[in-house]
C-alpha cells in the first residue's frame, strides 16, 4: 500500500561484499554520491534500480520497491548510464519517446511529448538523428531527456559529464541544474567532480569502501571533509588525529628545506611527489604520511628547487587549522 504521508526516498541497501549504505532524501532533492573508484557508487544506483541482488529496503514516495521485490520495469525510475546507452537503431525522438510508449502512451502523444523534451534541451532540430550522428554533449542531453520523459519518481545519473569536453560539460551542468530544479522527484547523482556536488546537489553522500563515510550538505562536506578522497576533491588537506579531524588549505602550508623552527605545531617531512601549476601558484603533492598538498609561489618553487624527489619539510600554523570531531 502506498502511504501518501511518506514521501521521497528512504533506502537501506546492502550488497554483500560491496556496499552497505543508507540514503534518505526529500522529493525534489539532489543527492550527489561521491567517492573513489570501487567505493560502491554505481553499485548503489544499480541496486536501487533493481539490477543487482540486494538486502535492505527501498521506499519511494511511500511505495516499497523491495517487499515484495519489484521488477526493474515496475520501478518508476529514470537511469542515465555512464555510456548513455542510447538505442542505436532509434532516432533521438524515438529514444526519448521510448519510455512513454512502453508505459502505454499513444504514439502521437508520446512523440509530441518527446519533441517537448528535446525542445527543452535545445536539440529538437536533431530529433531525426540517430545516436551515431550526435556529439557527446547532444547524446547526453538525449539520454537525460529520455530518462526524465516518463516522469520518474527517482532519477539516477551515473557520471553524466564523464567523457565530455570541459566546455561541453560546463554548459550541460548549468542546463542540468535548471532541469533538476523543475524535477519533482529525488535525484541520485554519481560524480567524480567536486564541482558537480557543490553546484547541483542539496545533499552529499560520501562512499568509501562500500560504506557511507560522510553525509551532509555540500557546504559541510566541503568545509569539513572526513575522507582523503573528498579532501583532494575540494582541494583541502585533512588529517585524523585521534577522534579529531584537522583540515587546512594548501595555501596555509609553509614549505622549507630544513626543519622549521618557531611556533608551527604541525610539521611533516617527505619527498615531493609532483609539482603542477595551480592557478597562479605551484601545487605540490608531498608524500609526508599522510600525503599533503602545499601551494607555493613559482618564485619560491624555483628558489627551493622543488622537483619530484626533493625532501621537504611542511608546517602549518595552528590558527590556519580547523578541527572538528570525528563522529
Amino acid at each position, binding site marked *: 500500500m502506498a502511504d501518501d504521508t511518506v514521501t521521497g526516498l528512504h533506502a537501506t541497501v546492502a550488497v554483500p561484499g560491496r556496499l552497505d549504505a543508507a540514503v534518505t532524501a526529500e522529493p525534489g532533492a539532489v543527492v550527489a554520491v561521491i567517492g573513489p573508484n570501487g567505493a560502491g557508487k554505481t553499485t548503489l544506483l544499480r541496486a536501487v534500480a533493481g539490477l543487482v541482488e540486494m538486502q535492505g529496503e527501498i521506499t519511494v514516495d511511500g511505495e516499497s520497491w523491495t517487499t515484495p521485490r519489484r521488477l526493474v*520495469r515496475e520501478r518508476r525510475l529514470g537511469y542515465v548510464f555512464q555510456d548513455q546507452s542510447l*538505442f542505436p537503431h532509434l532516432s533521438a525522438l524515438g529514444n526519448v519517446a*521510448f519510455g512513454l510508449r512502453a508505459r502505454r502512451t499513444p504514439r502521437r502523444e508520446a512523440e509530441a511529448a518527446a519533441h517537448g523534451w528535446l525542445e527543452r534541451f535545445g536539440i529538437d532540430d536533431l530529433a531525426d538523428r540517430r545516436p551515431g550522428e550526435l556529439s557527446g554533449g547532444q547524446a547526453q542531453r538525449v539520454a537525460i531527456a529520455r*530518462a526524465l520523459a516518463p516522469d520518474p519518481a527517482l532519477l539516477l545519473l551515473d557520471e553524466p559529464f564523464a567523457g565530455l569536453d570541459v566546455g561541453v560539460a560546463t554548459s550541460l551542468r548549468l542546463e542540468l541544474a535548471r532541469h533538476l530544479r523543475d524535477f519533482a522527484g529525488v535525484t541520485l547523482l554519481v560524480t567524480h567532480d567536486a564541482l558537480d556536488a557543490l553546484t547541483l546537489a542539496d545533499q552529499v553522500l560520501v562512499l568509501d569502501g562500500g560504506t557511507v563515510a560522510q553525509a551532509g550538505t555540500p557546504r559541510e562536506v566541503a568545509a569539513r571533509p572526513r575522507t582523503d578522497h573528498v579532501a583532494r576533491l575540494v582541494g583541502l588537506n585533512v588529517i585524523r588525529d585521534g577522534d579529531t579531524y584537522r583540515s587546512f588549505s594548501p595555501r596555509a602550508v609553509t614549505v622549507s628545506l630544513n626543519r622549521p623552527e618557531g611556533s608551527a605545531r604541525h610539521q611533516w617531512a617527505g619527498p615531493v611527489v609532483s609539482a603542477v601549476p595551480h592557478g597562479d601558484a605551484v601545487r605540490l603533492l608531498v608524500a609526508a604520511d599522510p600525503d599533503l598538498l602545499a601551494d607555493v609561489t613559482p618564485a619560491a618553487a624555483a628558489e627551493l628547487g622543488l622537483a619530484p624527489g626533493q625532501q621537504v619539510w611542511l608546517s602549518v600554523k595552528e590558527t590556519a587549522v580547523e578541527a572538528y570531531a570525528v563522529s
Partner: protein
Amino acid sequence: MSQQAALGRPPTPLVALAAVAATLLVVPLLTLVVDTPWGSFFSLLGSEAVLDALRITALTSLLTVVGCLVLGTPLAWLLARVDFPGRSLLRAAVTVPLVLPPVVAGVALVTALGRNGVVGGPLHDAFGVTLPYTTTAVVIAHTFVSMPFYVLSVEGALRSSGERYDVVAATLGATRWETLRRVTLPLAMPGILAGSALAWARSLGEFGATITFAGNYPGTTQTMPSLIYTTLQGDPEVARTLSMILLVASVAILAALRNRWLTTP
C-alpha cells in the same frame, strides 16, 4: 615502391598451390556454364517436371525460412539471453546437424517421424497423419538441416548487441516482450537476415535428408536437386540446365549476403 613490393616477391610454391586451389574451385563452374545447352534452356525450363520441381523447391525453401524465423528466433533468444540448466548442452545439440551427413539426418528423421517412428507412429495411430513422402516432410527435413545455420547466426547477433539495451529498456518500463519487439530484434536484424539467407541457401541445395525422409516423387517431394540427380542418369543435358539454375540462385544469395552481411561490420 609500395609497401607490399618492398617485402619481396611472394614465394613461388605458395603461388603455385594457390593457383591449383583456385583452378579446382573455378573450372567446374566454368565448364558448367559453357556446357549448359543454352539453346534449349528456356524450352526445358517450361517442361512440367522442371516447373514442378522449381515450384516445390521455391515453396519448401521459403517455408523453411519461415520455419526458421518463427521457431529458430525464440530458440536463439533463449540460448543468448536466458540462463537455464543444460544451456550449453542444448547449444551443442543444436549445432550437430551442421556436421551431420544429410543422409544420416534423413534416417534420424525417419526413426522419429516415420510411419512406425517414435513420434510418427502414435501420430499416425491417433490422427491418421503420415509425414514421410509428403511436401511437409520436405519442409521438415529442410528445416532440420537449415535451422542450425539460422540459430547460430541470430544467437551471435543477439550476443554481440548485448544485454545492455535490454537493461535500458527495462529501466524505461518496457516488458520483456516489448523489449524483444522494439529493441532486441531490430538490433539483431543483420544476423536475422544473414541467418535467413544461409538457411535458404542450405534448403535450396538439400538432397540427402530430403530423398531419405521424403522420397523423390514428382509433384510432391521432388525438389530441384532430386530432379537433377534423377535426370543426370538419363538426360545429362537437362541435369546441366537445372544445375545452372541452382548456380544462378546460389550466386544471387552470395551477392545478397555480401551486401547485407559480409560488408556490415
